[in-house]
């Protein structure tokens, strides 16, 4: 087994190669751009909200496999979820990739990013789209991580 086998899992490689919801969303209510100046990764998140619930979500941008797969899986995960649920997911996801402690596995597909924890330099790749998502929901237009 190679060391990176816990990072570049099949699912991540698949989402990197065939990202889901990877297009612009003409009709959207919320939008934010995320940028990691350290590595040049960029992601734009578009959301169509129906009241408090995400009806449609898409992303565009360019980045590494981790950031692309993370954005792709994010769009699959948050559809039909409300703000509170998303906020909780964000916190859980953030803990998953940063916390030293074992995180309770209630994250479903997102749990595959746990391997990122061992690569401190790559945590920002996994969280960029999530930060952009939260910014979009809070009405900010742009976030930068470094």
């Amino acid at each position, binding site marked *: 087994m190679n060391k990176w086998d816990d990072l*570049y899992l099949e699912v991540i490689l698949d989402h990197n*190669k065939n990202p889901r919801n990877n297009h612009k969303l003409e009709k959207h209510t919320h939008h934010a751009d995320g940028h990691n100046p*350290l590595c040049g990764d960029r992601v734009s998140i578009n959301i169509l909200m129906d009241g408090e619930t995400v009806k449609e979500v898409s992303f565009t941008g360019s980045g590494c496999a981790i950031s*692309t797969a993370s954005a792709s899986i994010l769009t699959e995960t948050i559809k039909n979820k409300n703000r509170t649920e998303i906020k909780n997911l964000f916190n859980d996801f953030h803990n998953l990739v940063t916390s030293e402690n074992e995180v309770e596995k209630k994250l479903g597909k997102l749990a595959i990013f746990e391997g990122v924890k061992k690569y401190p330099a790559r945590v920002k*790749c996994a969280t960029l789209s999530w930060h952009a998502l939260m910014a979009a929901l809070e009405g900010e237009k742009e976030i930068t991580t470094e």
Partner: protein
Amino acid sequence: MLFENIKDDFPILEQEINGKKLVYLDSAATTQKPTEVINSLNNYYTNNNSNIHRGVHTLSQRATKDYEQSRKIITKFIGAASSKEIVFVRGATEAINLIANSYVKPLLNKNDEIIISQMEHHANIVPWQMICEEKKAKLRIIPIDNNGELILEELNNLVNAKTKFISVNHVSNSLGTINPIDTIIKVAHQNNIRIMIDGAQAVQHLEIDMKKMDADFYCFSGHKIYAPTGIGVLYGKKELLEKMQPYQGGGDMIKSVTFEKTIYNDIPNRFEAGTPNISGAIALGEAIEYITQIGIHNITKYENDLLNYATSKLKKINEIKIIGEAKEKAGVISFVIDGIHPHDIGTILDSHGIAIRAGHHCTQPVMDFYNIPATARASFAIYNDKNDIDKLIEAIRKCIEVFS
């Protein structure tokens, strides 16, 4: 063979990373240090630590002697006319900021122009932008072509009566291009413009002779030439340094201080306010003696062979595109792989114990020019060999396999 057992001189290279013998190919970011340099730091703090230029006691005299001896070694190494032309700084970045603020800014008026190139490190962009903004002056850019070479004809179009200064790098840190600085210096001087050369990626690979080169200012960082971080060199022509205002005020840069008037010290001490990085300066002297023993000509040739070997091997991989194919290159190969982000390449190579750099290398305008977010960069030093490159190629092939 001169280079055969050279890895033994660098204790850090003995270790394994992720179960594989470390292959360090990130020397353009910083070089590893030979035992002589590490011992020099140890010796300084074990036996000679004290402050320089101000103590009558034995330790201070030893420290002062070694610090000034290092200045002499550097003077000889770069062919400066006098050790008064060698100013110790933190690194190339500080040297450029020093010249921008103490030499160029006082000359600069509204609408004046400073010329740099499109392939500069951010350290040779931002200091000029800062003074241009303050003085309402303009930054003009010598463009590059697809090979990563400067379009020199454009320099003649850019130079005009408003041009107050030119600053370009000797060797590009992201493309590896060796720039035709002799020509650029000639053009500058024909137009009575002073010029600075950023040699951060040059002195460790190429012979430098200030008398022949005739640059007005030149700089480099110690840590890229086998010395510690936090020490570097600014070379300036004596007559220019003598006219310059100090950069920072403090101890050691003065002759006398009263509340009414301060008389500044002579060069180079005028530009070395405060207690400097004494151990670093001494260790830089050691590093230069170390490579001088090997011979800079031998190093140029050896590293050039490595570069050519790596280039031809990389070119055999269809998915790879080399960024920067100048005719004259030193020390650096930047590349991208179809469908694989440089950060993913970097992580996978690290799992094979291979350290490369992935990112924009502090040269965002170069990335913009090639319309890429980042590159993977392998860079070479005297302790690399063809075996390192073979391992790099093998790991790249595995990386392509994973992402196919």
